[in-house]
């Protein structure tokens, strides 16, 4: 935990920090959680040190800890992005069959993933842009199909283009309604009736959210502001 960051006034927060702080609130003690690489991996910075949360890296460790001090790296202990990590007391090494057995078998309480598009059905597209970016799905399809809760952490729109859309134009990651979308502007819950606006970002108005969202949002009564920082 970084004291400077924790104490910084929210006015100075970056979009990514707002998102990571808000997602961190979704994580409860004792949960088994997988954080995707990039923005989702920042979430761990905003959990108390004694949170009792187990982080899983899909490459094979449960009980992932922070980056080791310089000179104490182990080439056999990395996260899914290949970065050096440590193992907390009670950590377990697992092979890829066990790792994805836990994911697909519903043993993973939550996964936090980035997103390219989420649509009104709550379906996520986050692994390819045909003709442009074909990196492979890695573990994303299993994570979205299998985790108990799927939280998508992403900036609300990309270069003025909406990412929360009526129907994904990009190839889906899974035909599964994800659990929650967290952006710097809003917290949105996909329900069987559609996308329910749960919270506004700090100092963000409902109109600002609607302006950057091409999907229909359900606005039901008062929409409180996120409580972060």
């Amino acid at each position, binding site marked *: 935990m970084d004291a400077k960051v924790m104490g910084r006034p929210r006015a100075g927060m970056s979009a990514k920090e707002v998102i990571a702080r808000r997602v961190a609130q979704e994580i409860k003690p004792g949960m088994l959680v997988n954080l995707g690489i990039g923005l989702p991996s920042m979430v761990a910075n905003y959990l108390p040190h004694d949170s009792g949360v187990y982080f899983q890296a899909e490459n094979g*460790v449960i*009980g992932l800890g922070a980056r080791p001090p310089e000179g104490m790296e182990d080439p056999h202990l990395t996260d899914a992005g290949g970065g050096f990590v440590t193992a907390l*007391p*009670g950590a*377990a090494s*697992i092979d890829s069959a066990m790792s994805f057995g836990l994911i*697909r078998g*519903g043993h993973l309480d939550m996964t936090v993933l980035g997103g390219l598009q989420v649509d009104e059905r709550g379906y996520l597209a986050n692994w390819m842009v045909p003709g442009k970016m074909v990196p492979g799905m890695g573990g994303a399809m299993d994570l979205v199909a299998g985790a108990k809760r799927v939280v998508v952490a992403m900036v609300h729109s990309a270069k003025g283009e909406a990412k929360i859309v009526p129907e994904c134009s990009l190839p889906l990651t899974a035909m599964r309604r994800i659990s929650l979308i967290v952006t710097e502007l809003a917290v949105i819950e996909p329900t069987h009736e559609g996308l329910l606006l749960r919270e506004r970002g700090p100092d963000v108005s409902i109109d600002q959210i609607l302006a950057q969202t091409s999907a229909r949002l359900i606005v039901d009564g008062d929409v409180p502001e996120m409580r972060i920082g």
Partner: protein
Amino acid sequence: MRKAIRPEEAAELVPDGAVVLIGGFMGVGTPERMIDALVARGVKNLTVVANDAALPGRGIGKLVSAGAISRAIMSHIGLNPEIQQKMIAGEVEIELVPQGTLVERIRAAGVGLGAVVTATGIGTPVEEGKQVLEIDGKRYLVEKPIHGDFALIAAQQADYAGNLMYSLTAHNFNPIMALAGRTVIVEPEMIVPIGVIPPDAVKTPGVLVDHLLARAA
């Protein structure tokens, strides 16, 4: 962190009629104190999924003798004459499953696969009533996953994070069943502080485990 509970408390968690996966092979690697507590509480109508029915007076054999089992899914019952008598008398319904298929059906439930596709049982009575899939010219049975309401696991060592180690032929069905029980209750021979079991020695990660039985007093 898992607080260790007494076998009597654990037995209270298992309601009559539950589907219970129980580790062990001929009674080796079976949680005996947990079974004793279930017999003591007078549990009824269990569906027991296990490799075998052990022997009278040992492991699952005690549940048989106590009349606690109404249905059994097992690969072998030949060394327990009591369960065979109850089967013939219509008191226990028995589904016999090839051993390798049984462990994979339990694994499939635990790791979120929709079925097991195996050639074992093709052309035998095991095939009856089952879907057959032809893949590249070879015939396979489609065998369904087996979930448990509970998995009752015997381990050699646990830590208070629930991480488990097993010993020799007492592994058998235990590591697989630990994946497939909605509630997983473990009877370890020893519980050690968190951090004592090296990550590479863990065979069942603690996140799968719900309850540990406290040491015998």
